[in-house]
């Protein structure tokens, strides 16, 4: 005897019913939690930007952000200007930290002029220029906030990723990797060169700051290459701004 659940009509009705139930459940969960998630993301961006310019609560070996309660206050305290660079135009925009770098990259591909956000921070008399960038790792997106001085020397950096391999590529957001970038020069003999994540540069303590190289993570070759490519192609776009800065 055929079971009730084996009938084609039952199967189709079950499938339709399940899609409706699961679909509305997910839609409800997503829309009711949306506001909280957006707030969390915005706070995270502020924490990331502050981290890059050295406003953080790092202990001996771990990267620790300022608390989410304090982030908005510290952000308005340390970040003095938020700029949007579009070609030769530089405009001030106090919501520039909300610019989605991914969307801007898509716009650039479509032939439109890309908006480049830049944050200027002041800490203990020093000026930091913080740039958000985005690229591709092994599995998914990787991104970074790079704090520079006006000579394009890295003052601090925060890397993060969406889904790199835990224990390997995912380690780009660990101190032992990020701290290597501090002091590295993006320029070489007056030309923009970027910073390469290099295997076998025989400098595990990263003492040489003028070689445009930092030590790679073993087992994370493609993530490392993604970091090099991202730093090169994205930071290059900001070079004209820094040239103008020097000329004025």
């Amino acid at each position, binding site marked *: 005897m055929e079971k009730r*659940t084996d009938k084609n009509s039952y*199967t189709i009705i079950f499938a339709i019913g399940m899609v409706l139930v699961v679909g509305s459940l997910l839609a409800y*969960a997503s829309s009711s939690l949306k506001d909280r*998630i957006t707030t969390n993301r915005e706070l995270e961006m502020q924490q990331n930007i502050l981290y890059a310019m050295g406003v953080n609560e790092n202990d001996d070996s771990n990267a620790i952000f300022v608390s989410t309660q304090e982030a908005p206050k510290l952000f308005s305290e340390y970040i003095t200007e938020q700029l949007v660079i579009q070609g030769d135009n530089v405009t001030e925009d106090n919501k520039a930290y909300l610019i989605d770098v991914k969307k801007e990259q898509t716009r650039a591909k479509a032939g439109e002029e890309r908006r480049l956000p830049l944050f200027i921070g002041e800490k203990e008399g020093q000026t930091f220029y913080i740039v958000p960038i985005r690229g591709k790792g092994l599995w998914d997106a990787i991104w970074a906030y790079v704090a520079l001085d006006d000579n394009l020397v890295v003052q601090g950096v925060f890397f993060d990723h969406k*889904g790199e391999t835990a224990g390997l590529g*995912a380690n780009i957001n660990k101190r032992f990797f990020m701290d290597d970038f501090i002091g590295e020069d993006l320029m070489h003999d007056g030309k923009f060169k970027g910073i390469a994540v290099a295997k076998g540069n025989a400098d595990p303590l990263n003492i040489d700051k003028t070689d445009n190289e930092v030590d790679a993570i073993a087992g994370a070759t493609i993530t490392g290459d993604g970091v090099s490519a991202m730093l090169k192609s994205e930071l290059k776009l900001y070079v004209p701004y820094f040239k103008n800065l020097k000329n004025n």
Partner: protein
Amino acid sequence: MGLLSKKDAKLIIDPLADDNPITIQVLGICSALAITAELKASLVMAISVIFVLGMGNVVISLMRNIIPSKIRIIVQLIVVATLVIIVDLVLKAFAYELSKTLSVFVGLIITNCIIMGRFEAFALGNGPWRSFLDGIGNALGYGVILIIVGFFRELLGSGTLFGFPVLGDPIAKTGLYSTGYENNGFMIMPPMALIVVGIIIWVQRSRNKALIED
């Protein structure tokens, strides 16, 4: 175990050793290779799978009499994906830091074949309580192997455990490194996970000859 009958206790204990999902059933190898370079990642993955498999088995078991057999695999996949996505959304809203740590594992959990395997082999034919125990037992068995592999890979590959240096500093040559010992970089690569799992299987089968197939 006074709380559980002998038959129920078997559901938890068997997968820990003689019916282990990784070493005996050879399921879930993909994630066991991918994320065991660090002990911490192994532990997080183990806890996540315990949660998802326990919950998923109960849901599938409750639905077992209404799921049409022709599309049961799709239904199983949707149940596990929905569970994981809802948990991910809730964590993003209320425990953002934790959700960032876990985001790497979401895809690996949904596609973990132990989960599909237990739905198909157990939850479709048993009641919710027994399915729950079976889910917890199998996830624990999976987790134990993950932690053993993660322990050896992190210790021999990076000289650390949970990120803490236990063998000294490899660059400054202190501790064990002063004797000329070096970290084995190959341990960090996925092939070594396969070899470590192979060694565990070897040890297990040489101790219990009944497990050897012809």
